[in-house]
């Protein structure tokens, strides 16, 4: 049997096939196209200006081979810096002195979020208060953020941008052999946010880590959660929040010559300090989103946070959630607990059920919500072994369900505990877990029958196999809980009046280019074309525009009855037209859909 996903069949075929592919399925990568155009013009100009060009007969024999661009990632500098050989750098025409405003960055989830939130004024107590408060707290070895014009970016931003944009800053080594390029300096931090960060950083005693104790490999970009970068006339300051419970700081001296910046410093010869990465990430996330971060109000306020320690060894009890008007010291430990559960505000996160023991109350209540989607798999690297996690992408929780569960979590007093004896957890132990992905982070909360909730944070760093995410664990926290309470409360929250979420129903939208929502949904059964309009341009779901169809699986809740009607509905779920009959056979546990006259129904809603 031929492999249907083997497009080798289209390879080295005749020109008609190639023409057809070019016309029907163009490569559609604008960034790559622009890159190739730049390469083309460089080669063209190079050849044109070469000696003897005018007298040289241009042939198309193709015996001439051009030297490739040699992009070489520097072996020791991480993430924000790339080194290129000087000759190549010269061809990039990146003269900082002549450079105007930096390019608008590529859209990126994290970057966009940060940019958007930076425009929101935080409800902090003001710069002056913050400075006073900071001065009363622990001394921060890398100085105050408010003293410098720091920019911020997420850890994976430069990698996304490095081949598509000019860097924001370029620094040459004094020897002239290498150049360090920064793509992460376009999101400036407001003074208020820098003050909030000062307050945050001043809450712990800072302990320097010997470089030989570092867990991270400096060459691995994926270890950086946040980058803060500030440039003055003669220095560059770098603060990286890493995911291995360390903070990296370096200050590099710069000299300027002929409009270019030079340094003889080693970008990696900075200092590393011990932090709790997960908690810092949560706190910084909140600060960047403009959430309130009250600074210490008393000059003699004692910071309450102990130096960050490993999660497993953390036996301190979690503080009680405090009311909004309670004046309190914000610490790294308590910050993210003020308004929501330690693993985030559930209603703002797109958590999905990842597992539930068969026939458990949760599984019975949530029904298909707990069926993992085998197509969205995460391969977790756990030391020498791997484990798999699977998401149920098909079956999101409703906003109402998320709100209910969020209230359950946020009103609970979360107490950390030591790592339990996992030998007591067997296959017979009742448990359920939920997962949530945002950017490159995966959050997993697992409720276990022996009254433990485990909160794992993973970071993805690649795609393997059949598009599975490759991830590794960043941190694990354990909380002592009342399992029966959560099991029953969540089961009640997710209990569904529907027997099935019909997954085998496709749809198409009308061909009216002005109707850009899901006002008219033409049910389309997989494999059976039901309307001629499908071949025409139509509009995507929820305002996403395209001149061709964006497929959205229309998941329709099916009541726990044996028959139901498939209908065209509008945004208010009002029925516009009946499409056909749905029949569930409990004996075979299968579904049959019969479309009566889809074309007539489609016409009825025009």
């Amino acid at each position, binding site marked *: *049997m031929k492999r*249907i*996903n*083997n*497009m080798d*069949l*289209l*390879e080295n*075929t*005749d*020109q*008609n*096939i*190639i023409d057809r*592919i*070019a*016309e*029907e*399925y*163009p*490569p*559609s*990568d604008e960034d*790559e*196209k622009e890159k*190739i*155009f730049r*390469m*083309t013009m460089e*080669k*063209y100009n190079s050849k*044109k200006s070469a000696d003897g060009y005018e007298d040289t007969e*241009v042939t*198309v*024999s*193709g*015996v001439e*081979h*051009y030297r*490739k661009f040699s992009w070489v990632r520097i072996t020791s500098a991480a993430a924000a810096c790339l080194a290129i050989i000087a000759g190549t750098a010269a061809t990039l025409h990146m003269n900082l002195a002549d450079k105007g405003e930096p390019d608008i960055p590529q859209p990126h989830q994290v970057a966009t979020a940060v940019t958007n939130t930076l425009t929101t004024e935080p409800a902090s107590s003001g710069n002056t208060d913050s400075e006073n408060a900071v001065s009363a707290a622990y001394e921060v070895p890398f100085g105050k953020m408010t003293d410098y014009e720091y920019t911020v970016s997420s850890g994976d931003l430069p990698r996304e941008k490095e081949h598509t944009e000019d860097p924001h800053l370029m620094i040459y080594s004094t020897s002239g052999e290498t150049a360090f390029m920064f793509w992460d300096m376009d999101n400036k931090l407001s003074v208020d946010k820098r003050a909030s960060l000062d307050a945050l950083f001043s809450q712990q005693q800072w302990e320097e880590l010997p470089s030989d104790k570092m867990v991270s490999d400096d060459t691995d970009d994926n270890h950086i959660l946040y980058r803060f970068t500030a440039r003055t006339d003669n220095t560059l300051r770098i603060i990286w929040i890493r995911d291995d419970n360390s903070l990296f700081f370096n200050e590099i001296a710069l000299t300027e010559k002929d409009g270019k910046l030079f340094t003889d410093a080693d970008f990696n010869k900075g200092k590393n300090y011990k932090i709790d990465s997960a908690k810092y990430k949560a706190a910084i996330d909140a600060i960047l989103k403009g959430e309130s971060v009250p600074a210490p109000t008393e000059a003699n306020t004692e910071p309450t946070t102990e130096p960050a320690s490993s999660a497993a060894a953390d036996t301190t009890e979690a503080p009680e959630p405090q009311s909004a008007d309670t004046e309190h010291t914000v610490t790294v430990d308590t910050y993210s607990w003020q308004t929501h559960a330690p693993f985030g505000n559930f209603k703002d996160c797109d958590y999905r059920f990842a597992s539930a023991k068969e026939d458990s109350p949760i599984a019975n209540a949530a029904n298909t919500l707990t069926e993992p989607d085998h*197509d*969205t798999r995460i391969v977790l690297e756990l030391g020498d072994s791997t484990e798999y996690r699977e*998401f149920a*992408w098909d079956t999101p929780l409703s906003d109402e369900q998320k709100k209910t569960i969020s209230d359950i979590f946020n009103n609970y007093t979360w107490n950390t505990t030591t790592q339990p004896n996992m030998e007591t957890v067997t296959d017979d132990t009742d448990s359920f877990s939920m997962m949530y*992905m945002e950017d490159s982070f995966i959050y997993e909360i697992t409720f276990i029958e022996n009254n433990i909730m485990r909160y794992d944070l993973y970071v993805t760093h690649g*795609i393997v196999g*059949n*598009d599975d995410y490759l991830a590794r664990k960043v941190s694990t926290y354990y909380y002592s809980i009342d399992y029966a309470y959560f099991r029953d409360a969540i089961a009640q929250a997710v209990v569904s009046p529907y027997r099935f979420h019909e997954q085998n129903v496709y749809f*198409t939208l009308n061909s009216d280019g002005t109707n850009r929502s899901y006002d008219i949904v033409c049910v389309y059964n*997989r*494999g059976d074309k039901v309307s001629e309009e*499908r*071949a025409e341009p139509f509009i995507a779901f929820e305002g*996403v*525009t*395209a001149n*061709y*169809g*964006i*497929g959205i699986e229309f998941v329709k809740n099916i009541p726990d009855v044996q028959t139901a009607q498939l209908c065209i509905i509008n945004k208010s779920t009002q029925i516009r037209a009946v499409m056909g009959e749905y029949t569930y056979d409990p004996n075979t546990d299968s579904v049959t859909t019969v479309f009566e006259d889809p074309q007539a129904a489609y016409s009825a809603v025009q």
Partner: protein
Amino acid sequence: MTDTEYKSRMKDEPSLCQRELFDEYYNYVYSIVFNKLRSCGSREDVDECVSDVFSDVFISLDSDKVHGGDIKGLIATIARRRAVDMFRKLSSKGKTDISIDDEGVREIASDERVDQLTEAAETANALLNAVKSLGQPDSTIIIQKYYYNKSSGEIAGAVSMKPAAVRQRISRTLKRLNEILAAAGEGR
């Protein structure tokens, strides 16, 4: 655009003219090059070759030589030759020499057969028809994924979906394609 038209426009607006030519024939050239190199070269090799083609085209059109007629023929010729050159260059890396005295040399006497090529073209057409019957955006996603070897993240940007949704879609669409090919007798 003809050779004469191009040269005429090049006198007034050279940069704009080159850009328009590039935009008009980029997909065409890319498809020719990619079709030849997709199994032996990297994305960078393809990019390199496509840029070689266009720089050659520009140089060729700058010359006094008159090609006449539609430029598309010239571009196709340059693209095919460049792609073959690159293919040979990339393929030669892992090859060893074969002695003329080897017994196996008889088996490499001919590596192209008209009947096989014809059958391959029919099969390719059938596959493209099956893919097309998936409808959009599934057909685009499948081709971008398995023909152009794009990642789900890259495809997601092109079809305005989230990568996870693209991954999910790919798996389901493959099943549908399986069914379509099986029904058409191509899946056996």
